[in-house]
């Protein structure tokens, strides 16, 4: 199942010197839930400071990749190292930004409280945020320019504002690695650009590593150093221009697929459907088990 990717392991060529361990290193890693293999023999090494975009249709195991990095989904075989050690739950060097889900309008929680939970929410006890913690919250709010609405009930904020607070919540712990699970989903174009720039800017300025799950590669084209595309248990990884090609995509999907570059955007089109569709609507891809 994993034939496409096996020979393309980037590990050997890009491994950094021993003093500078990579941010993460999947080696022949296979993830399975019960008997269902999500992806197999995945091998990618990401040096520190790089921006990796994780692409693929819904249900292809993009989120599972993040869960493996968070220590929440153990591998069936192979190995994974994160920031120089095995993945473990609650690693403070990892920040996490979820999909925008939308808080209930009346939930008694302000923007700054959400960010505050990023400081000490995981610790047992009752205590209020320390003075140092409050300073860090202020700094994080300022970094994402969320100050003006930090005291508003979070359920009353727009999707873009909530995602800015999510970024502050993830960055307040001063992480080295930032995992983003579809942070742009259900945001309009303007907010998509703002959120991507905040995350990409952090990676650039702080030499932080970003793993960015998205079903549309276009918002991150200017930031991604490389991409990994996962579909049907297979994968391909490498620089964007090498992975998002017609041959590679056709091979991954086991069906004719064309990758077009139009006005600086990348559009992936499956031939069999007759109508145009792009990577935003992956469920329209033809089923690989076809009868000709």
């Amino acid at each position, binding site marked *: 199942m994993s034939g496409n990717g096996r020979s393309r392991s980037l590990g050997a060529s890009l491994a950094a010197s021993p003093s500078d361990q990579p941010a993460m290193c999947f080696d022949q890693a296979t993830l399975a839930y019960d008997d269902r293999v999500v992806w197999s023999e995945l091998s990618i090494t990401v040096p520190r400071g790089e921006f990796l975009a994780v692409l693929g249709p819904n249900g292809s195991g993009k989120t599972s990749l993040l869960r493996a990095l968070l220590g929440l989904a153990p591998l069936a075989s192979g190995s994974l190292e994160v920031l120089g050690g095995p993945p473990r739950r609650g690693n403070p060097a990892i920040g996490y930004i*979820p999909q925008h889900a939308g808080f209930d309008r009346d939930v008694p929680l302000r923007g700054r409280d959400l960010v505050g*939970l990023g400081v000490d929410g995981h610790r047992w006890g009752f205590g209020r945020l320390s003075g140092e913690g409050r300073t860090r919250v202020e700094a994080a709010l300022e970094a994402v320019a969320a100050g*003006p609405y930090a005291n508003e009930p979070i359920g009353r904020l727009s999707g873009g504002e909530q995602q800015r607070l999510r970024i502050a919540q993830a960055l307040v712990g001063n992480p080295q690695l930032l995992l983003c699970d579809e942070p742009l989903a259900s945001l309009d174009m303007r907010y998509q650009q703002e959120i991507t720039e905040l995350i990409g800017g952090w990676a650039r300025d702080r030499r932080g590593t970003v793993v960015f799950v998205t079903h549309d590669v276009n918002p991150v084209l200017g930031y991604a150093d490389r991409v990994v595309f996962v579909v049907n248990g297979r994968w391909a990884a490498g620089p964007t221009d090498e992975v998002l090609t017609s041959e590679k995509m056709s091979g991954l999907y086991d069906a004719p697929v064309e990758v077009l570059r139009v006005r600086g955007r990348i559009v992936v089109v499956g031939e069999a459907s007759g109508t145009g569709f792009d990577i935003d609507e992956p469920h329209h891809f033809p089923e690989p088990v076809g009868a000709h």
Partner: protein
Amino acid sequence: MIDQLLHLLPYAFVQDMLVAGVLVSIVAGLVSRFVVARNMSFAVHALAEVGFTGSAGFILIGLSPVLGLLTGSLVTAFFIGALGLRIRERDAVVGVVMAFGLGLGVLFITLYARYSLAFTILFGAITTVSQGDLMLLVAMAALTIVGLGVMYRPLTFATVDPVVAEARGVPVRLISILFLLLLAAAVAEAVQVVGVLLILTLLITPGATAERLTAQPGLATAASVGVALLATLGGILLALVTAVPVSFYVTTIAFVCYLAARLGAPALGRFRGNPTA
């Protein structure tokens, strides 16, 4: 009426009752914030009703009704936790366990054949709790407060933001189970004041009122405890000098607080709306 109260206050049993009332109110105020946020009112009802069965069963074999209540609600919490922690399953599991538990309660009450007892458990009467049980109640409430204090922060995280809480290493599933057990203890305590059937007045209304008043979590918790204190202590004091049961006063005071918060909150400017939206 005031004279009567001043006359009663020096009595030890009145003071014990007030101490128990204060501790139970703190428990109720803290817990109800999470009951509201986690949509657990049905579970609260089940814990209380099967607590009734435990209470009736313990009386039948000559043991403390307070311990019986605690046992009944803890066993229920165990079943709910073991059979269904996922939201979708939870309602069904709660209903299934509650129905059977209450059926047993009918049997116990019939065997004991004193229906006034059922009335007391169902509608509450802290004024009839024995001295020994009052001390037990104080100890239980103090322990529950300590337990809530220890898990308050991760419980808040897991309640308002479960996905990120899990990513940050909060043991979300363990927290759910621990909270269910603490909730069972809180139910057993609050039932002593307001009874099984009126349990929601202490475990929902304070939290629901607080949500209307402020979006600041710390203030909301304080407001919730405040409402529970006002209703419980007010109810106990009024019941001491009149012939009406405690639970009537508690429910009425709590309801008035809720109405006032709903009607008054817009004037206070909670939810000013978002200027940039």
